[in-house]
């Protein structure tokens, strides 16, 4: 059966969705991910959806649910690389994915996870002074 691979990087789990998500696959991902968070005792989950061109309301909701479940399991979720068309579609569908943190790309997403979402300790892009 088709599965989306979940990679582990230290305390974080990395999921890169490269294929078109159908409902079954999304449900499997949700199962696998919650299991892995528990097993690995992960602190953060990074989901890269930059390759996705279509996200329907179901997938949008699953993403939201995954974030909530991760939160219950004490892990933060960052969704990265959403395409403009996808973002517009989700907004038009009325899904604003409240509670999910987002970042433009994997690098910024990892930074966000590392700093634990604390803006005060964010690494500075430019040296001060």
């Amino acid at each position: 059966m088709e599965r989306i691979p979940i990679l582990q990087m230290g305390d974080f789990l990395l999921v890169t969705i490269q294929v078109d998500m159908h409902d079954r696959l999304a449900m499997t991902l949700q199962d696998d991910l919650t299991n892995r968070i528990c097993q690995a005792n992960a602190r953060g989950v990074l989901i890269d959806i930059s390759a996705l061109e279509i996200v329907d309301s179901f997938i949008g909701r699953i993403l939201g649910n995954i974030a909530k479940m991760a939160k219950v399991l004490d892990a933060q979720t960052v969704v990265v690389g959403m395409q403009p068309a996808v973002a517009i579609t989700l907004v038009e569908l009325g899904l604003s994915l409240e509670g999910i943190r987002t970042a433009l790309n994997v690098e910024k997403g990892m930074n966000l996870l590392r700093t634990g979402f604390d803006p005060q300790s964010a690494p500075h892009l430019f040296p001060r002074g």
Partner: protein
Amino acid sequence: MDSKISSILEQSSTELLSEWLQLLTSSYRQGVLKEAELREECREFLQAFAKAVQGDRLDSIQGPQWSDVRDILTHMSRSRSQKGFTPSETAMFVLSLKQPLFERLRQQWSDRSHELLDEIWQTTTLLDRLGLLTTEIHQKTRDEIIIRQQEELLELSTPVVKLWHNILALPIIGTLDSARTQIVMESLLQKIVETGSEIAIIDITGVPTVDTLTAQHLLKTITAARLMGADCIISGIRPQIAQTIVYLGVDLQGIITKSTLADAFALALRRTGTQIHRSDVK
């Protein structure tokens, strides 16, 4: 039935051409069109016209034998329209052919008034149709120009500028309608992806009014940007617009607003961890 115009066009095409040209040059503004150019157009048209009226269907200009005539007229109307001629000037190209043509008909058929009338009626309907065709194409060309200009204006009026590393600004000028907001939204989001900017400042100093629909569109844009991982700041809200927003009950909760673009920029710099110092250099 053998058409009489057909034989007239065959016999006296040279005289027709010169008389027609004379009429055209007297009615056209001078200098806009070269005479040689006009002569060539007329000659081509007469040739195609003579060929087309040899067929037996003279009550419609849609048939295949008319395709050459239609092509020539389409080309002519387009170039006239682009050169700034009026629709009537364009139509006169065809309609002024009536005078020399009818003159010939009258000379040949003066003894049989009944048939002459029939023939004139048929010819005049035909030429009117061709004249209407030119007007239609003229109008269509104008419409195309207007639509293209509209699109260009739309593109021009919504530039997304990069203010700093990771900071974009979108100064909006003019009234925001749905079509425009759509373009604004798409170009902003696209630029966010391209530049990887974390903060976008939407400056609406140049927007005179905001209605519910516009406010909703703005909110959607901001939510979409947030989904992609970028934050938006709205700046330059006029007092009048602030009143409208509150009266309309638009919820701007969770959206950062600043009074001026400068304030928004300062905040954006702070957010990205940049500091600017002014050194007092003498």
